[in-house]
């Protein structure tokens, strides 16, 4: 190695090392209130092979119906979707009956005289909530707006709490394992994250509740479920109703509502990956054969 080359290398190495040391010594990034660490849950639909658990989606719908619908709607999901494969897949007759007994009506249509009417939903109608619009919802909820839950799982994510020097590694692991359940993990943490009384020294606003998962920790939504009042399942479900079980099930149901094509997507994904893998190998062999005609 030429001496000049060595010198240059020293300079470059020194510059690099000083950058690295500087970064380590610098006080940890001020991530004071960028959310609490959210624990990852074990979901049947997680990773690149996961699929929804139909029984869990059915239980989750039950929790949704008994708990969430008192304030929230699910307008992008239609009753017919509840009977489709890849979802809770209730029998169509049961869904028809469910729609016919739905406590909230479809409004905004006109009768033959042109007067606005309300009517019961059918299979093709959205799963509406109690409020006809946001103004009505806010008026009934002390100014807070219970959001529609159709996309709630997709619309939430968790921030990485890994230190700056290993974030890239966690990112690669997440990509390799197909982790995309941040929204579900967050929603579950929110369901079970209420603390009453709040930690010492926390001053809650009026009508606010303390939640460890919620950014800022003050949330207008009262605890939707509690240890003492769980949603009981049918005896044949074979699952003990607990707060955690309720929260898992309703989160799974809402994950499906956000992403109803997940099962089909991953199944097709494997077929596509397999086809591409085989084709890539074959093309590589073809390429090798062609290039073997030349010295290279």
């Amino acid at each position, binding site marked *: 190695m030429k001496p000049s080359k060595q010198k240059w290398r020293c300079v470059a190495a020194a510059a690099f090392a000083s950058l690295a040391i500087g970064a380590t010594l610098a006080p940890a990034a*001020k991530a004071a209130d960028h959310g609490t660490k959210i624990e990852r849950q074990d979901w049947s639909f997680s990773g690149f092979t996961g699929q929804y658990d139909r029984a869990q989606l059915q239980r989750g719908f039950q929790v949704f119906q008994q708990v969430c619908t008192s304030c929230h709607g699910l307008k992008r999901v239609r009753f017919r979707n509840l009977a489709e494969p890849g979802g809770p897949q209730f029998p169509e007759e049961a869904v028809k009956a469910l729609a016919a007994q739905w406590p909230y009506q479809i409004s905004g249509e006109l009768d033959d005289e042109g007067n606005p009417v309300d009517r019961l939903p059918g299979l093709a109608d959205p799963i509406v909530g109690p409020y006809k619009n946001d103004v009505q919802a806010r008026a009934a909820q002390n100014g807070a707006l219970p959001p529609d839950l159709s996309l709630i799982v*997709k619309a939430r994510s968790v921030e990485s709490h890994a230190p700056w020097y290993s974030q890239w590694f966690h990112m690669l692991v997440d990509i390799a394992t197909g982790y995309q359940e941040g929204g579900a993990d967050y929603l579950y943490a929110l369901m079970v994250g209420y603390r009453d009384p709040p930690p010492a020294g926390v001053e809650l606003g009026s009508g606010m509740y303390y939640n460890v998962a919620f950014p800022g920790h003050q949330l207008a939504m009262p605890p939707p479920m509690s240890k003492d009042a769980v949603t009981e399942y049918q005896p044949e479900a074979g699952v003990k109703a607990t707060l955690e079980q309720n929260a898992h099930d309703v989160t799974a149901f809402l994950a499906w509502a956000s992403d109803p094509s997940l099962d089909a997507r991953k199944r097709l994904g494997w077929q596509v990956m397999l086809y*591409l893998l085989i084709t*890539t190998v074959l093309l590589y062999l073809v390429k090798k054969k062609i290039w073997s005609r030349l010295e290279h």
Partner: protein
Amino acid sequence: MSGISHGTYEPTTRFGKWMDERLPIGRMLYTQFVDFPTPRNLNYWWTFGGILTFCLVAQIVTGIVLAMHYQPSAELAFDSIERIRRDVNFGWLLRNLHAVGASMFFIAAYVHIFRGLYYGSYKAPREILWIIGVLIFLVMMATAFMGYSLPWGQMSFWGVTVITNLFSSLDSIWKGLGTTIVEWLWGGYAVTGATLNRFFSLHYLLPFVLAALVGLHLWALHVVGQNSPTGLDVKTPSDGVPMSPYAVSKDAVGMFAFLLLFSWFAFFLPDYLGHADNYIEANPLVTPPHIVPEWYFLPFYAILRAIPSKLLGVIAMFAAIGVLLFVPWLDTSRVRSTKYRPIYRWFFWLFVFSAVALGWLGSKPPEGDYVFWARVFTFYYFAHFLIVMPLVGWLETPLKVPGSITEAVLGKEKGAEAAPAKT
């Protein structure tokens, strides 16, 4: 490159002969894409040109079908995307392919750009080829930016608001200039459905501008011929191999390997590269806590925020791309390929590191140490082009470059044997 060919085009059918005398498309395709001499030493980094062409075509095809279902209005845009995801047959697939496709397009483009920088593919006589490439990059960015606004989610809306507002900094040069430009871009006094409509229109137009630029890029490429890992051109027949089947078979392997990555994201991680806030419908009254652009803009976003003055930040952000136009003249090295540049090699990887670091910093809130490091790497980003490239090229003694591609591949003796055989 016409002097170095391996075969000749002879139309065999009567129609082929008739056509050849009138519009010789077949002859053009044969000489440019079958017989065209490609360096025999190209590595897999050279397959990204073909991959990028595929990406553009894939985006246009999926985009045209999506446009059949999409409603470009502030009231309906968000709902129509959800209809596509839920109710259109395989709509979820189309939409994932298009959204993930944009990211894949940029991954391939960044690999392609860094490959060009590493092997000196911008140096004479490829200056125009390189400059057209930079223009393609700019139009790609504009297209992607407008495309991201179309779902009309929170990040779409606020991304558009933040980025278009940048032009208002021109007010500090000439009072009213920035405001006028911003209102002209918006089609009103705020980001509204009017903005969405024009962005949709331009998002449909620009890909065809891209296609035209890609045509020019290819034209310029086929005039000067491809660079190679040694930085040497094809000078004798033994330096090159006919594009088909040699380069084509290699491109096919690269393309399918890339499709594996593409499919991994499209099928298993369709939202990984996006932002959760974009699943919330745009709301002008609620600002998201962190407004971040798509990942492929993050290095430039970091540069923008690294500079305390808004105007200078905007200038730096555009200059970060603009400086690429001058790379052919900023690099003073006698040799093209970094393979033979023992000192510059270190700076090249430092530049790659800076660009990646800026990308990471762009995703963080602009506070504390993040700003400090963004400034450090912004400094190096520009120093690399403006100081390192001219200075190191001038100071450095490059390693010995082989006499020809043939020599580099076969060794000195065999290379010398093969070289004079001019057929």
